[in-house]
């Protein structure tokens, strides 16, 4: 993975930068020792690593503003970091950058159940947002798999989704307001505890901008009352095509499940080995979850059963207890850990139109043979967000490169059938150089022009999202 060469002019400023940042944040807020900086050398895309020049851990919006102002004055690039769980390298540093971690900013600032909002500092983890409101029967809906660890800051930066976003939407649909610090240290307030911030939709623009426009330090989030109950059903099929057709029929019937998850034969076997979930031996498996009162759940599962029967499932298993529900989900939720136990892997994240599912799975199977690397598929079938997992051996020279080439070909296929490179993980460094497969140069120029407005010096996470060649002129002009 190519990254810009560290700028020696910036590296030479380290001592002065440490001095100024320490004055602003205190000693405990600045990490400068090589050994301690190793902790920040990568995110969850661990194949690529590079320790930063420095890391800082501010405690308040004002400290973030002070630190950014210093970096801005000294022309030092800043890479914002939530919990470092990005699968796309969104929080990976360069050697001449400062990592700005928000992990110390994790307070709940306000809960308002009558208006159904919570305001938090963005270092707070996703799951602990729900933790702060579940006593009153509420929850925060977006639920990325990493929700135990991932921070709201990163959720906003990457516009994170999750298994239940089919019904509840992704981060951008649940974000109502932010306090954001601009690269020059200015603090701006956008939106709040009311719907649809006035003026241009800057909130929609910031969400998913991968830490390139500003550092979001506080967020107002929509919270919802929990449903009365939820129950999954497991449906096994003897082909991917039939499973795909069943998904389409469920959606067309007007049932709105909270989740429709799909696993192929390889993932079924690997997850079964790992989690002993009791999955059937079949080609394709759907987990469909519906919500409501007991009677409502029964009614919806009845409709799903009618639809599934038309597709001759090899198994249709309704959870009848919390324990059975837990077991149905156990395999799916452990999918990434399970496959990680078997092999090194690369997780892709392309989205395709649901109707293209059988064709794309068939083509991935063919590519798997020609590249000589195994691949498993697990994904959010209701919205076409695929997660092909390509297995490789990190200790075998050249294997990672073959895996990257395979992955790139799969993502190009997603674009070719009318989809996109990434549905919920973000571009980061991972998909950066494929952006011209999805966008024309002018399309990317317009996006980069947005960054020009927010961050004229191109100091915030500059080497991400856009192909280095496309952003080079802007990055150099700003130096």
């Amino acid at each position, binding site marked *: 993975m190519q990254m810009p060469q560290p700028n020696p002019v910036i590296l030479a400023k380290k001592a002065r930068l440490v001095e100024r940042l320490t004055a602003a944040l205190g000693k405990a807020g600045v990490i400068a020792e090589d050994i301690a900086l190793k902790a920040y050398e990568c995110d969850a895309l661990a194949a690529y690593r590079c320790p930063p020049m420095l890391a800082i851990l501010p405690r308040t919006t004002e400290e973030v503003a002070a630190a950014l102002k210093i970096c801005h004055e000294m022309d030092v690039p800043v890479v914002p970091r939530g919990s470092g769980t990005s699968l796309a390298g969104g929080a990976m540093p360069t050697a001449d950058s400062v990592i700005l971690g928000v992990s110390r900013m994790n307070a709940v600032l306000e809960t308002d*159940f*009558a*208006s*159904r909002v919570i305001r938090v500092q963005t270092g707070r983890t996703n799951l602990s947002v729900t933790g702060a409101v579940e006593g009153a*029967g509420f929850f925060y809906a977006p639920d990325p798999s990493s929700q135990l660890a991932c921070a709201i800051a990163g959720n906003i930066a990457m*516009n994170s989704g999750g298994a239940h976003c089919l019904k509840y*939407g992704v981060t*951008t*649909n649940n974000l109502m307001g932010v306090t954001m610090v*601009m690269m020059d240290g200015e603090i*701006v*307030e956008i939106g*709040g*505890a*009311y*719907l*649809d911030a*006035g*003026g*241009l*939709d*800057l*909130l929609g*623009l910031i969400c998913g901008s991968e830490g390139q426009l500003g550092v979001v330090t506080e967020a107002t989030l929509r919270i919802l009352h929990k449903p009365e109950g939820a129950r999954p059903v497991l449906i096994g099929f003897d082909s991917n095509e039939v499973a795909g057709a069943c998904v*389409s029929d469920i*959606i*067309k019937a007007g*049932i*709105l499940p909270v989740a429709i998850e799909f696993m192929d034969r390889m993932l079924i076997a690997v997850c079964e080995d790992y989690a002993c979930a009791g999955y059937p031996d079949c080609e394709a498996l759907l987990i469909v979850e519906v919500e*409501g009162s007991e009677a*409502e759940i029964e*009614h919806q599962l009845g*409709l799903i059963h009618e639809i599934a029967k038309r597709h001759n499932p090899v198994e249709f298993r309704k959870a009848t207890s919390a324990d059975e529900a837990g077991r149905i989900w156990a395999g799916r939720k452990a999918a990434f850990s399970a496959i990680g136990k078997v092999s090194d892997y690369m997780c892709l994240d392309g*989205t395709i*139109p*649901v109707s293209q599912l059988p064709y794309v799975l068939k083509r991935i199977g063919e590519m798997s043979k020609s590249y000589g690397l195994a691949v498993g598929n697990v994904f*959010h079938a209701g919205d076409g*967000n695929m997660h092909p997992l390509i297995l490789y051996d990190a200790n075998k020279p050249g294997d990672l490169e073959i895996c990257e080439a395979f992955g790139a070909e799969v993502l190009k296929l997603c674009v070719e059938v*009318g*989809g*996109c*490179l*990434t549905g*919920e*993980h*973000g*571009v980061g460094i991972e998909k950066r150089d494929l*952006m011209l497969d*999805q966008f*024309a140069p*002018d*399309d*990317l120029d*317009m*996006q980069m022009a*947005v*960054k*020009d*407005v927010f961050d004229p010096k191109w100091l915030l996470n500059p080497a991400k*999202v856009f192909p280095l060649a496309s952003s080079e002129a802007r990055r150099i002009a700003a130096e």
Partner: protein
Amino acid sequence: MKFTPKTEAELAEIVAGLQAPVKVQGGGTRAIGHTTAQDVLDMSGIRGVVEYEPGALTLVAKAGTPMAEIEALLAAEKQRLSFEPMDHRVLLGTQGAPTIGGAVAANVSGPRRISVGACRDFALGVRFVDGTGRALKNGGRVMKNVTGYDLVKLMAGSWGTLGAMSEVSLKVMPCPETEATLAVHVTDAAAAVEAMSAALGSPYEVTGAAQNGPVYLRIEGFVPSVAYRLDALEAVLARFGAVERLDAEASATLWQDLRDLRAFAGHAVVTRVSLRPTDMPAFLAAAQAEHHFETQLDWGGGLAWLASDKESLADFAQSYCAAHGGHATRIKGSFEACAFQPEAAGVARLSAGLRQRFDPKGLFNPQLMARG
């Protein structure tokens, strides 16, 4: 002068050759605010549904496609635009056919916004021509997409000030089997917001929470589910006043009238105020101390429509929001003052910067969203 492109290529050519600013217009039914542009860029010729895939819940249509055409197409598959866009003709007394591009450009979202999201939440992709005549795209036609910056949301609600949209992709939703509404007779605005908060804070998935006289709470879904939820919700709301039930047909008519502000069609000045729901009663009390007006609440009390005969109420609402958060928009009136809430300095600078980048010559609807 009036420009009438029929294709995106013609649109790009026209924009590249523009010598003076234009008013970007779809059906011209949402005549809100004032721009200094004299010429008109009429987008209604760029029309037609490009692709509709009911099994994937996605629709791609050229921006000038009439809403009526899209609604009919969806209805044939028992699907709909879930964000329930208002038809402004009733309130504003305008003629013509509202277009899908106009609805997206104005981010028009009706009562169901409280439960499913705004128009911008259903906008998956956009094609547009920027102020230099470049044809650009962003987003796509799939439901989950974080590839690059989300300019789709930026374009939605930009009121044509950033570019002329030629095509939009939308997520559509299945129509529910049935619907019903509870009418709760409450005493005042504070009780109304409290009742709506109680309903929206329940697990019964209320898809509309409005007040004009009684508080109205809508439930949609499968027949047994709606029956069950109505009972459950009635039990929650009994303490706020007498409760009546409206069946599916009465419910549908009611929500269409609420959506379109039918009750306010005769008023000269209408203002739309978005606030934190629990702040709404205090705002209304403050406004009532100085002004005479009628109110329709929506979005659980987070949205107020105020009808009066004097502009001073809109001035009051915008000043109040500047001090307390939220925003107020002049929907109907003289538009001598800017229709939109003035922005705080930092945000205003970002907005102006974006307009400058998207439309460097200031060709699209100048002065509409911000005066200066």
